[in-house]
């Protein structure tokens, strides 16, 4: 398992040893020392089925694999970073465009966020601009997410937590996610409150939210 260290609010350093791999957003390497290779990865560590899922889901943010022996600095677009540790018990569901790097020891997959999945979920994803198909990381290891402004953690447990799809980064734990559409005639005539779509979350876990509705490119 590669050792990650947060250098400041926007940069993270990964110490990679022989036999270890780190998946990273393509082009997110800032500098490195030692002997490290960067190989483009199409599947992001997922199986062929997962790869097809990524394409269909529009989750195909290009990834690369960093391997070898050395210390690599990662950062992207001046966005803030947060290290999330996974202990194997809970998986992390995260938007692909908000994922900076993750440990090769984690297993990646794609999941439809919206209930029901299928064409309806895709249509919903188009409308909210969120994609609604997310990457799921499970196993033991670290993942680093990016956000515009700092990341806020909102605990889920008991009551329902609603999150703006544009501010949603990801969540950890046994959480049920449902897309709620609250579209009225007001939205149709352009007089909506801008809060027509919400992700309703119930269960037990934590949701990560950014203090902005900006999409990370």
């Amino acid at each position, binding site marked *: 398992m590669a050792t990650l260290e947060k250098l400041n609010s926007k940069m993270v350093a990964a110490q990679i040893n022989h036999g270890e791999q780190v998946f990273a957003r393509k082009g997110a390497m800032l500098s490195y020392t030692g002997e490290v290779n960067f190989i483009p990865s199409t599947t992001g560590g997922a199986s062929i089925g997962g790869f097809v899922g990524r394409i269909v889901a529009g989750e195909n943010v290009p990834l690369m694999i960093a391997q070898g022996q050395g210390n690599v600095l990662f950062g992207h677009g001046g966005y803030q970073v947060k290290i999330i540790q996974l202990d194997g018990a809970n998986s992390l569901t995260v938007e692909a465009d908000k994922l900076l790097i993750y440990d090769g020891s984690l297993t990646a997959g794609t999941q439809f966020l919206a209930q029901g999945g299928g064409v309806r979920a895709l249509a919903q994803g188009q409308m909210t601009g969120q994609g609604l198909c997310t990457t799921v990381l499970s196993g033991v290891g670290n993942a680093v997410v990016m956000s*515009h*402004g*700092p990341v*806020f953690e*909102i605990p889920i447990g008991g*009551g*329902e*937590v*609603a*999150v*703006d799809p544009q*501010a949603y980064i990801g969540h950890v734990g046994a959480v049920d996610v449902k897309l709620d559409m*609250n579209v009225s005639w*007001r939205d149709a005539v352009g*007089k*909506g*409150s*801008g*809060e027509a779509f919400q992700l309703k979350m119930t269960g037990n876990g934590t*949701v990560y*939210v*950014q*203090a*902005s*509705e*900006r999409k990370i490119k």
Partner: protein
Amino acid sequence: MPTFRLNGTRLLEVDIAGESFRALNGSMVAYTGQVQFKKQGATAGGGGLFGAAKRKLSGESVSLMDCTGQGTVYIANEAQEINLIELAGETLFVEASNLVALSSGVQTEVKFNGLRGMTTGQGLATTAASGNGTLAITTDGPAIVLEVAPGQPLCVDPQAYVAHKGQLQQDFIQDVNWRTAIGQGSGESFQLRFQGQGIVYIQPAERQGGIDL
């Protein structure tokens, strides 16, 4: 009355129990409990139809929504810093683009600035908020709070100006000369001058727009 609370510097948490408050349209990032969001009508900013027409004309149209219900609402805008200002019967003048949330005891009204707004990118008008309650304003970077005392006028860059309150007279200074005309100006050809007694809030960033001098 709703409780306004800051979580860090860029996220505002508002607890409501049956009451309502107003927030910038689309600024909700998350909420718990049962909360409804409804955009305010054109006349909701005060002043009836005349007020609506004024806002339309001046471009000082803060698009606000009513948040009603029971729970906690998380408000944020473009990861900008949020500052809470308590009003106790006073009037705060604030740029509409910097207003993010206000509690129910605060009324807003559009005040004209005259021509100076057009040249500075500050807008033709400014918003006057008055009453009793809490106001949340955003600043690009941490807000700088400057005090103005009698005999010590303060000049600020209109593009950095955010808000002011107190007994202040405001005027507009121009320092346009032949250098400005040939594009060799210092970039500081217009200033807002405040005199009297009060507080001026500015941000450590200059918003874009207007005539670049």
